[in-house]
């Protein structure tokens, strides 16, 4: 059995749905052609030569990453490989020591966090970052905060402009909530929802901003296999429905293999591989660094 086959089988058994993954692989090859055509256009997101260190600890070293329009781009790697640091650099939470981030062809260093939503970038957080004291509807509507122009006085008085903004935000929020099947929880306080739903509310809040680029920091962390597949479906649906580019960090390689168009692998702050799921799955360095060396009992005998 080749290394690549081993990897796919091993991953399939991890989430227990190999047919599903096979289906996605088939889908991806069907999509391959339009993507090559789009590669000529400017990239949605481009990182070049990113260095980031905290004191003496090097978090990222000379990382390049190109994300095409409309693709689902995964970043994987072992714990502490620098995945979240990379997302934080893209969203401007961290300022890189070197290198720059280009969003739709415009280079930034650092990315202006306050203007991020206006630039068409929305993100979720690894550890939930919902507003616990607001209802699900208000949390999702908050995703439209960047579009608000009315000042507080016109909001208090209820001038037409302020009202229109509020209705627009709520309508948009409702349609996203509907899309992610969160309608039954509309008026619940976000902090009172179970973990998996909170993750989905966060995705809804990010989508409410109508982003062109969506950054997801471990959106499936702590979920059951079923919840993970469910969320993967939502991410794919959202990409198709709203025509967005998705950059995704994930621990669960199985889900990533099925979901993403291309995968970058980080290890100790360096990018060690970049390519389609098949390429990644057969890359010896990835297998060694991230998945370990294949055990003796390949077929599972003797376990």
């Amino acid at each position, binding site marked *: 059995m080749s290394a690549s086959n081993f990897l796919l089988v091993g991953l399939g058994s991890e989430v227990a749905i190999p047919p599903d993954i096979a289906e996605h692989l088939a889908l991806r090859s069907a999509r391959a052609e339009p993507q090559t055509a789009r590669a000529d256009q400017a990239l949605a997101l481009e990182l070049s030569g990113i260095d980031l260190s905290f004191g003496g600890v090097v978090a990222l070293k000379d990382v390049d990453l190109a994300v095409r329009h409309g693709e689902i781009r995964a970043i994987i790697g072992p714990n502490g490989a620098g995945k979240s640091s990379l997302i934080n650099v893209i*969203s401007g*939470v961290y300022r890189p020591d070197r290198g720059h981030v280009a969003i739709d062809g415009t280079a930034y260093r650092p990315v202006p*966090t*306050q*203007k*991020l*939503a*206006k630039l068409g970038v*929305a*993100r979720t*957080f690894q550890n939930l*970052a*919902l*507003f*616990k*004291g*607001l209802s699900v509807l*208000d949390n999702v*509507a*908050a*995703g439209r*905060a*960047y*579009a*608000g122009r*009315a000042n*507080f006085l016109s*909001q*208090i*008085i*209820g001038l037409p402009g*302020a009202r229109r*903004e*509020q209705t627009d*935000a709520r309508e948009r929020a409702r349609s996203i909530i509907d899309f992610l099947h969160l309608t039954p929880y509309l008026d619940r306080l976000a902090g009172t929802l179970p973990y998996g739903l909170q993750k989905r509310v966060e995705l809804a*809040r990010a989508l409410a*901003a109508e982003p062109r680029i969506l950054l997801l920091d471990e959106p499936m962390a702590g979920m059951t296999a079923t919840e993970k597949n469910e969320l993967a479906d939502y991410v794919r649906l959202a990409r198709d429905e709203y025509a967005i580019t998705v950059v995704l960090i994930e621990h669960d390689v199985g889900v990533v293999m099925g979901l993403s168009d291309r995968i970058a692998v980080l290890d100790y702050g360096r990018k060690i591989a970049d390519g389609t799921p098949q390429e990644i799955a057969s890359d010896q360095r990835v297998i060694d660094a991230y998945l370990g060396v294949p055990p003796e009992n390949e077929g599972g005998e003797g376990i």
Partner: protein
Amino acid sequence: MSAVTADLAPPFSLPRHAGTLGVLAVAYLVVPFIGSSYLFEAILLPFLALSLAGVGLNILTGYAGQVSLGSAAFMAVGAFAAYNFNLRVEGLPLVASIVLAGLSAAAVGLVFGLPSLRLRGFYLAVSTLAAQFFVQWALTKFSWFSNNSASGVIDAPPLSLAGLSFEGPVGRYLFALTVVAGLTFLAYRLVSSQTGRNFIAVRDNETAARIIGVPVLRTKLLAFAISSFIIGVAGVLWAFAYLRTVEPAGFNLDRSFQILFIVIIGGLASIRGAFFGAALIVVFPLVLSRLGSFLLGDVFDSGVLDMTQRIVIGALIILFLILEPDGLVALWDRLKSRITAAFRRA
């Protein structure tokens, strides 16, 4: 269709805000006719002023999550600004003095809110102490503020609104009630607007708020300004309607703590909470002194009363923080829903 909605609605459901309107109706139409002068002077006037201050601090601390120990300073700025505008600008209507006083307090609040851009929580609370000490010092040091009065204590001008004059306890009560009701309504509109939700977003998760495009710095400063405006007007009511004198000593650190306790006991991030908390803080010492002298007679003098009051309030705050962090409002809501449920079962 209508039958379906009628079935779904609880049998005792009243239109929204019916409770609030009921309370207002009683406050305007019943209380002025049956209340004694003691009720107005000792209970309702301080209650109204402190409630408004509580509403103001709740916007800053409860909604926007910025702790402040300088509330009394902003009350003092409001009171002295209103006095000086009234004294020094010929023919300025009292309402205009009050609005200008609020704006002065907002400006001072904005300045002392600047540290909030870099400091959080405990450290911010300590920096707002600066407002408390600075304002009290400035008002005592520069006698211009108290019109060079030898004692530093000055009389408040008579209250009038749009040609009507509000004299006597009932008049001052109606004046304070109108101001408090108006500002509370505006505060309610604010906290249920996008700006109010931005406050909560900044409180609950500042990084996430910044990422989704909430202007965090502007939002924090706005919270300081609006909160100080309301507290400043509360200071005007405290001095003009309740005490009828204006002196810096009344706006000391104890008062700041008192307002913070009102917000904590009443319920953070709740407009009603400020009224519950203020009611408790105002009524409680009176009840305690009655009860004390009834049970213990002469032993229970003012010194003992003062000590007992501090001990019991302190214990209450600890109890609330542990058992009911959401304050009296949460207790009230639970009681109400239990009664409604009991009625429905009956």
